[in-house]
């Protein structure tokens, strides 16, 4: 990452590698289903073979690029906790860096779907008074998520600065 998205301290805290794994698993499942559908269509003869082959190739290409993108995306997520605020960065092509001061946080959400729970990760989202604040970190190890949430909540309280 270039200077623009450099971390405020030494380095960005990365998210758990389980995030990438979970997403890739999901991708794999979807790909399999899609290939089966294409195969069914081809077997039923609804479409000419050539087209089926093309469709299959397309699905595989999408899956492969998706595989790579998921990995890259997960690598690009990072956060840094500082004394007064939290920095979050994400994105490879469209990069974003968000700073949320602790004193501004209204509340903190921790979300975990069934798949997340299976991989032992969770997603944390910070809310301020502004709906534009898109400060979320997916794929945090579950304990880290809980710890971060507790820490953020208590810090936000200590620095209650009003609206």
């Amino acid at each position, binding site marked *: 990452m270039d*200077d623009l998205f450099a971390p405020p301290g030494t380095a960005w805290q990365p998210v758990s590698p389980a995030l990438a794994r979970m997403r890739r698993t999901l991708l794999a499942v979807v790909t399999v289903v899609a290939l089966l559908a294409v195969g069914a269509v081809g077997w039923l003869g609804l479409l000419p073979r050539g087209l089926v082959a093309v469709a299959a190739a397309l699905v595989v290409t999408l899956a492969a690029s998706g595989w790579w993108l998921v990995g890259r995306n997960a690598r690009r997520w990072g956060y840094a906790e500082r004394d*007064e605020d939290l920095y979050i960065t994400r994105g490879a092509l469209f990069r974003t860096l968000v700073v949320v*001061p602790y004193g501004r946080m*209204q*509340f903190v959400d921790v979300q975990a779907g*069934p798949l997340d729970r299976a991989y032992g990760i969770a997603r944390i989202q910070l809310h301020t008074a502004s*709906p*534009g604040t898109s400060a979320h970190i997916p794929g945090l190890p579950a304990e880290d998520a809980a710890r971060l949430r507790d820490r953020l909540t208590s810090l936000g309280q200590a620095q209650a600065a009003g609206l």
Partner: protein
Amino acid sequence: MTDGLDHAVRPPKRLSPLTPVVRGGVLVAAAAFASFDSLVSGEVGPFGIILLAVLLGGFVFGYASWLRTRYWITDDELRIDTGVLYHQSRRIRIDRLQGIDIVQPFIARLFGLAELKIDVAGGDREGSLAYLPLAEAHQVREVLLARRDAVRRSAAPATGKPDAPAGADPAWAPPDHEIARLDLPMLVGSMLLSMETVGAVVGGVVVSVLAVTAGGAVALPVLPVFAGFALFQVRKFSAYYGFTVSQTSAGLQIRRGLLERTTQTIALSRVQGVLLSEPALWRRMGWAKLDVAIAGYGSGSDSEGGPSATTVMPVASRALVVQLARHLLGGDVDPDAVPLAPPPRQTRWLDPFARRFMGAGTSEELIASREGWFTRRTHVVRHARVQSLRLTQGPLERRLGLANLHVDSPPGPVHVLARHRDAVEARELMEREQALAESARTAAARYGRGVTEAAPDPASPGADPAPRTPDVTVIIPVYNTMPYLTACLQSMVDQTIGADRMEVVAVDDGSTDGSGKELERFAADHPGLFTVLHQENSGGPASPCNRGLEVARGRYVFFIGADDYLAENALEKLVDAADGWDSDVIWGKVEGVGGRGISQLLFGSTEKDIPFPHSRLPYALANSKMFRRSMLEEHGIRYHLDLRVGSDQPFTVAAMLHARRISVLADQTYYYGVRRENATNITFSSGWQARLEDIGTVMAHIAELVPPGPDRDQILHRHFKWELTNRLRADFLDLAEDDQRALMALVRGLAEEHLTDGVSAKLPVGARLRLRLAQAGRLEELRAVVAAERDRLPAPLAFRDGRVLLALPGYGDLEEDWFESRTENVVERLEAAVVVTSLAWRGTVLHVEAAGAGLHPDSAEATSAVLRPLPGNRRPGGAVRRSAKGQARRRPVLRSAVALSPATALRGLGTGLRPRDADAPTATGRPAQGGADLHAAYDVGDLLGRAPGKRRRWSARLVFEAGPRVFDLPLVAEAEVPHDTATLVRTDAGWYRLVARVGQHGRIVLVRQPVPVEEVPRRERLRAKISRLGPR
């Protein structure tokens, strides 16, 4: 495996088990309706099976959801866990709760259930518990609100004051007064000039063309569009008709509406940001629109709840819009003054026109951005309201080295976005904004000023009772004034008026020498007396003083410099006097300490009622006075922020103009003005430009307050006489020529604006001449005049054309009006102007030669030599002649013309003055500058016949006439003149000795002494006999 959600110790609570029924109720009804006929007939087709399956699934899901939903109320947060597949745990801080609503939708009501909607400060409905039994819902609400108040009370800042808008003390409330009104022509004009109208016109043209070419039927479908447009416009008109914005004690009040009058009140503490819109069609007319983003539940009396955007002014002149914006943002900031830098050049690849219209930047209190080609939108937000910051960069932007900075603020129309900035700059801006927002927040939170947390409404049990109003608030702007600050603060503590009748508001303007710490120390030692506010350095005392005014609660306010101090009883006596006399402005005698000189002209004696401006008050425009606060609030008198030096002058002028009574106490010293040891001196050569600009700004502000005329002249003449003329003194000659010309140009600008004839008449000649020369751009002559003043060259008086003129360099060449003296002390100058150098009798004529260094040869016609009888001369009979009015009259007994010629010796050729040939003609043909040689001849012969045998004495005098003014002064001789020049004269009445004597104070006295014949020397008698034979 954990799900990342730990479980609180306290047992969780559940919602009502009937919840899935209520939620699913609608679904059931819809399903029943859809399959009505199949239910009736008893058939169940495939569609029905699917429907049943869906219903069943819904029920199962609903039940699972209910099982999963739990909530906890802990000491400081409300926690709600939801979600079957996607677990969600939400924690809401209790002290952030804004409001809790209990709502009962129809079906819920049937079951006796209610929904609890929870609002968090500044956000949408952020949480809800649905559904609970009604009683339990109420109970939960009570518990949450009570806990919130308890938390708030315990966290209330120690020295803070309740967030009351200025002037909310119970003893006095400012009257509502109207700030702006949208009048009908402007409303109609703005609607006509809007895009909708343009679109409608274009559409109309298109439709009519179509109708003509392709037949009427084509136009029909378009008609509803027109109807819609017409309806929209009518509604808009009706909504904005009679739009009025007023200032009330509760905030800004907006009233509007044609058919239905709507009232909305905006509490200034709820304002998050403002949006100025200028559509292209309006820019020509100079119109703009102002919207404001307001946070919080129940903003306004329409109790809509949640965030809202409000139009503060649908259309108005840009200046008015900016003024309203300033008011909304807190009064002491200027949204127009935020420097908006355009994006860098490479932006043109992404957006070719961007650079012309986009901009973003910060000032010390605000961050703003602008964009939009067609409608130019400027978004402005205070640093203290910034929530989070976001930097984004797409691939194209990365290629060009650009990035975008989003400033997240509470929802509303205001979105500050610095688009396409240079990447490095964007990151720096983000870090800087983070720091600024941080300090703004801390300052606000600690000192409870305006930006408080969802201000507790007065009815809630947690609010403090309104404290008693102090009599006087002392406001101290502080910037690096150690160690003098200690004495100042100590004098506040020592005031005899007592800490319960006064308060001190000290505003630390970003001091770096420990002044802030000293303020804190005093505040800690004397709780309740001092309120200390900190802010980032604003560059001058104006912003701190304004801030002090906003939080002041006293009936009077007194401004004191942080390095000065007051006498112990100063405030007590001033307040008593002001109360007794009903004065709006009052101050006490000022004494300079440590070598600082204070003009004592104005404090000669205590005065109850001094008129303004026709008095010496224009010379006392410092703000170290006591002002009645209600008067300041009523007229919105504040300090202008665009002045570093001299911002107190327009403030004091405004106050004095509106004051019903201005008084001064001079029985003792009240205020001690201290000269600081290390007072930084801006050298003339480096500071003159800023100083002149400041003076110009001060004068412009004063001109705004007073219409042109004698009043304005009376005030502004001080600036010309004092401040501006001081720029044209000896230091001026040390500047480089370019600087001199530049300075002259600045003075010229001000002279063009304000140097009216009225002002000019009040100026001393030296000042007027310099100013007029600067105005005319004549550098050479100006330098000559400045040099003459520096070298203290005498300026001779010229009596001409019925006027008194001062012959400064340039006299004779330049306009005569410039040299007219109206304010100088002519008599004083005349007394030293002419000195007799020789006396000689020739026969009966006394020839007097005098050096008139202070007299100009032009005065010849207006000057005459006169002999006046001195007291002691008795007329025959002893009676003194009286005039018709009964006054003793002494007629001059001799009057003769005086000859004045240009002085033969040129004086005072100091550097810078071109030596002038005394005979060289000037442009007007009159003699140029320089004194005169005076020759007077007093022929006493005619006087010899009067009162023979008596001793007579006359005073030799000079009379100068200048129109209505006549100056009559005795001739004065230098010590070297031989005394007692005498001659003997024989007349028919006998021998007389005529003596020209230098008497008391050097005055020339003529004495006619009769001499008995016996005493006359033989020689004389013989001479007389011989001369009688010859021609006389």
